[in-house]
């Protein structure tokens, strides 16, 4: 039996740039930054006082009682999944739940719930700790809630590979459909940890930008002035579908998810491999899995987080694996780094780039790093025919994921 083709039939997102995919995409193409100051009282003492917060708070979308039972990462996963589901034309379609799976992960999980409930425990004692605490903080919570909302009975899966999570969750969705375990997989990532402790932790690693006075200029991948990533929050969800299944119901197809490559560095718990060896292998595997030539990849939505070391290592890996022909962009320059949702949101951007023939800009690339010897769509969106494109995502722990999307 030939391997199933897998296509993308629905997209959903809530991001620092907009409450849905359309508004997020418009903002990306316009080169708008979603980064702003953190004005909350708890931020005053932090070395980092900027972040890319959601454009639309989930409490504006979900009712108050539901929000009481959801970690923020769960709430936005549900919102993005509902959008993707409706976008795919599956709402009210009567799809057999036993042919529907979910693969939604988070990099950090329900940390803000854990911290808030710990405050209650300390201040008021154990009886005041919410009975919703565990389902709110468990890492599988977002996937389980999405499965519950949509009636998924073919398995609900939670990938956790730090900042590669969203992309790896999509790769798992591809495997699930190829292996015949489901016809439709709702796949993506979610993250909502804009809180003093995660920020202090990342800041202690010296991983974050401290450009507090210029929030919109702080996320600047590949620029000589980059000084770390900017934390973002949001969720991105894709509806993946067996191509024959999508065709049979006359679904609109955005793109093919043609291939995925997953590797691990076995090198260091947080530092990427010094020669990008694992990243190179992931990209090569994704291209081989997609059964295309490296020359076919004309655009890459890079992982590029605006860190001094990682950004240029990725350039080296891309050059080694693909050559220097693709047009790159780093949409984190606008969205900040959504950690476990990054690979999902950037997959959505990659897919829309293919659909619309346009690469969103990398903003703030004012003085490119001397080692940046590839073509980047700096400052302005670039119109380009894109038959095939790549999305990279790398995570602490040495996770490398590359996804290839092609025109349907």
């Amino acid at each position: 039996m030939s391997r199933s083709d897998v296509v993308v039939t629905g997209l959903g997102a809530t991001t620092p740039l907009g409450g849905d995919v359309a508004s997020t995409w418009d903002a990306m193409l316009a080169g708008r930054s979603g980064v702003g100051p953190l004005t909350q009282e708890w931020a005053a003492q932090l070395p980092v006082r900027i972040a890319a917060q959601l454009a639309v708070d989930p409490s504006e979308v979900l009712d108050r009682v539901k929000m009481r039972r959801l970690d923020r990462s769960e709430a936005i996963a549900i919102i993005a999944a509902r959008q993707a589901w409706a976008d795919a034309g599956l709402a009210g379609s009567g799809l057999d739940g036993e042919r529907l799976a979910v693969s939604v992960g988070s990099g950090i999980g329900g940390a803000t719930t854990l911290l808030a409930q710990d405050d209650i425990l300390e201040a008021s004692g154990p009886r005041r700790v919410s009975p919703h605490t565990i389902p709110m903080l468990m890492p599988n919570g977002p996937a389980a809630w999405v499965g519950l909302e949509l009636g998924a009975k073919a398995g609900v899966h939670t990938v956790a590979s730090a900042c590669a999570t969203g992309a790896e969750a999509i790769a798992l969705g591809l495997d699930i459909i190829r292996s015949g375990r489901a016809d439709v997989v709702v796949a993506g990532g979610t993250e909502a940890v804009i809180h003093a402790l995660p920020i202090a932790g990342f800041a202690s690693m010296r991983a974050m930008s401290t450009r507090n006075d210029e929030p919109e200029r702080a996320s600047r991948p590949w620029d000589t002035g980059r000084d770390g990533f900017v934390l973002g929050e949001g969720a991105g969800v894709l509806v993946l579908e067996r191509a024959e299944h999508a065709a049979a119901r006359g679904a609109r197809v955005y793109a093919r998810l043609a291939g995925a490559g997953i590797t691990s560095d076995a090198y260091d718990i947080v530092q990427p491999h010094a020669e990008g060896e694992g990243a190179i292998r992931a990209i090569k595997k994704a291209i081989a899995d997609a059964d295309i030539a490296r020359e076919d990849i004309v655009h890459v939505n890079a992982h590029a987080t605006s860190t001094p070391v990682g950004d240029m290592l990725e350039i080296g890996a891309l050059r080694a694996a693909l050559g220097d022909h693709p047009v790159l962009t780093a949409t984190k320059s606008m969205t900040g780094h959504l950690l476990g949702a990054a690979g999902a949101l950037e997959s959505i951007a990659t897919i829309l780039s293919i659909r619309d023939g346009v690469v969103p800009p990398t903003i703030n690339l004012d003085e490119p790093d001397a080692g940046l010897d590839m073509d980047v769509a700096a400052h302005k969106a670039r119109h380009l025919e894109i038959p095939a494109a790549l999305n990279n995502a790398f995570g602490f722990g040495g996770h490398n994921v590359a996804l290839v999307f092609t025109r349907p």
Partner: protein
Amino acid sequence: MTRDEITAGLAEILEEVAGVNPDDVAEGKSFTDDLDVDSLSMVEVVVAAEEKFGVKIPDNEVQNLKTVGDAVSYIEAQS
């Protein structure tokens, strides 16, 4: 505190915790069958009621509180 006042207080809690319409709260209503209060939300209702009415409702009593009226009677007897 009268039974009506206790019922009204419970209705406030049920609205806050579980989104129950206060107009639906009456002594004859079952928490689970009529008002759709699930087991985790019931825990929240109990803790909030203890605070509001200054009573103790041990876990082994909670299972006997099937209806709003059961809870009103328990709280009335304790306070």
